[in-house]
């Protein structure tokens, strides 16, 4: 059974990745999931300097999903390089670093700093709905998206994946902008902006008032967007949004995703990634599929 896929020239031994921000740098989940079983680890967003993130409450549960407004808390690239990277290098899995910033210069600084490190790919987060400046501002306008993609691509020594926001009118316009900017791939979807109000306290459930919706509740939207993007560009697509099991992942492959990432499901079950992997294998066995490529984009 072949499960290998290639994205931006990087071969993943299987198409199962961790969704950024839900898995840290793998240290904590390592107690539950053997990182060697994953195609790659997409890390929590890394910025040039440490970020403190938002006030609490930062998460709240919603029906079949959750809202988060972590605000990209992270220890900054130097600590990431000194502590997290050596940890990840012990494993036979690809390292994909999620990069965040407030300004163009912030992104470039991280991308350049990571240039000489053993990192396999970069995922550029231009779609975080929970920070005031930067982030999503780059991801909601096709011109700025194309511009930042081009700038990052110029400096990057690793292939770059642009992470797209679903909080736009036409996702294909964004995907085309990333493609014209020279991206090696796109990943989607980031979370969908939402809100919850505690009627007993008459207060916002999150300190940030709004947060990003993730989990099974967003899967139909994510799947539709992945399909539309796959129809409109020729870059490889990493699909995510509400994947809980192998069947969910297969839907994304059929819609055209070359790899999938699992996020919120990890909170519901720390063994979720293993379950998704096993589920994909079971599906392939059941239908006699020898190569994962025989699934990718094969919806009729």
């Amino acid at each position, binding site marked *: 059974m072949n499960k290998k896929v290639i994205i931006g020239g990087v071969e993943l031994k299987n198409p199962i990745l961790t969704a950024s*921000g*839900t*898995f*840290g740098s793998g*240290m*904590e*989940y390592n*107690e*539950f999931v053997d990182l060697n079983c994953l195609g790659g680890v997409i890390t*929590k967003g890394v910025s040039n300097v*440490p*970020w*403190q*993130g938002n006030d*609490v*409450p*930062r*998460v*709240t*549960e919603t*029906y*079949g*999903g*959750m809202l*988060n407004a*972590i605000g990209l*808390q992270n*220890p*900054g690239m130097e*600590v990431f390089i000194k502590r997290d990277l050596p940890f990840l290098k012990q494993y036979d899995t690809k390292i994909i670093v999620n990069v965040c910033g407030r300004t163009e210069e912030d992104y470039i600084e991280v991308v350049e700093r990571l240039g000489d490190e053993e990192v396999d790919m970069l995922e550029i987060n231009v779609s975080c709905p929970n920070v005031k400046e930067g982030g999503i501002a780059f991801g909601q306008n096709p011109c700025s998206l194309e511009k930042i993609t081009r700038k990052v691509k110029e400096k990057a020594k690793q292939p770059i994946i642009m992470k797209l926001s679903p909080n736009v009118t036409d996702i294909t316009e964004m995907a085309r902008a990333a493609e014209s900017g020279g991206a090696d791939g796109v990943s989607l979807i980031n979370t969908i902006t939402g809100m919850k109000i505690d009627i007993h306290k008459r207060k916002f459930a999150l300190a940030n008032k709004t947060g990003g919706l993730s*989990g*099974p509740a967003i899967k139909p939207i994510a799947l539709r967007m992945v399909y539309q993007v796959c129809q409109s560009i020729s870059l490889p697509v990493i699909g995510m949004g509400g994947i*809980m099991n192998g069947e969910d992942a297969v839907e994304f492959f059929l819609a055209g995703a070359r790899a999938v990432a699992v996020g*919120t499901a*990890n*909170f*519901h*079950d*720390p*063994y979720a990634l293993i379950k998704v992997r096993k589920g994909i294998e079971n599906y392939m066995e059941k239908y006699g599929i020898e190569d994962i490529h025989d699934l990718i984009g094969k919806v009729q």
Partner: protein
Amino acid sequence: METKRKEKGRVIEQKEIGKNIYSMWIETTISGNGRPGQFIAIYPKGESTLLPRPISICESDKKRGRLRIVYRIAGKGTKEFSQYEEGETIDVMGPIGNGFPLLDKKAIIIGGGIGIPPLLELAKEYKGKKEMILGFKGERFMDKEFLPYGSVEIATENGSSGLKGNVLDILEKGEHRGEVILACGPYPMLKGVAAYAKKRKIPAYVSLEEKMACGIGACLACVCKMKEKDSHSQVPNRRICVDGPVFLAQEVDFS
């Protein structure tokens, strides 16, 4: 640190011990290495309630491989737990967190409301001398279970038993002379305890709460603000789930 695991536990006993307050014994191997002040995560069934519920270990019976939780119905998840009958299998993960320090100093153990349950195992295992102060809104629960381990003083907000007031009013009477405070309860109570300990120049260890997602230190949902920069996060935030839930009050930014 001992490893966490997620496994199937089995409900052995379920009892309502107060209004909307339940005591449940669960058969699980997690009981083998849990410490007082640590907690477990219980996963409600079904995918409409995705996130694990953090509930403190109230007692552990290592010999028989069981642990006890005492919880109040607060919403969907705890409501579902209260409906489980003996024999029900449930997904549990743990043990999580650092737990209370077991010192050889005279301790004042202070609990408020649903913060009282984790203190029972603490009272049992704490080796030094100890006195308990427990605060309730009105109805008392579990207070008698502490009697074998030391003196117990009670405050109730409605004055139905003990002192009319809260645990801070008991502390302020100044009759308790401990060398350390160990506390769990609502945030305003812990803030008051922290201020009292500062005034008396004794350390206070407080168990904090925050909304969680992963429960294992990866997502950074559950942070509390600290006075100093934390070496793990590089910012003055620490994770309640794995760096806590018990913190030295003097280090917490209660402002």
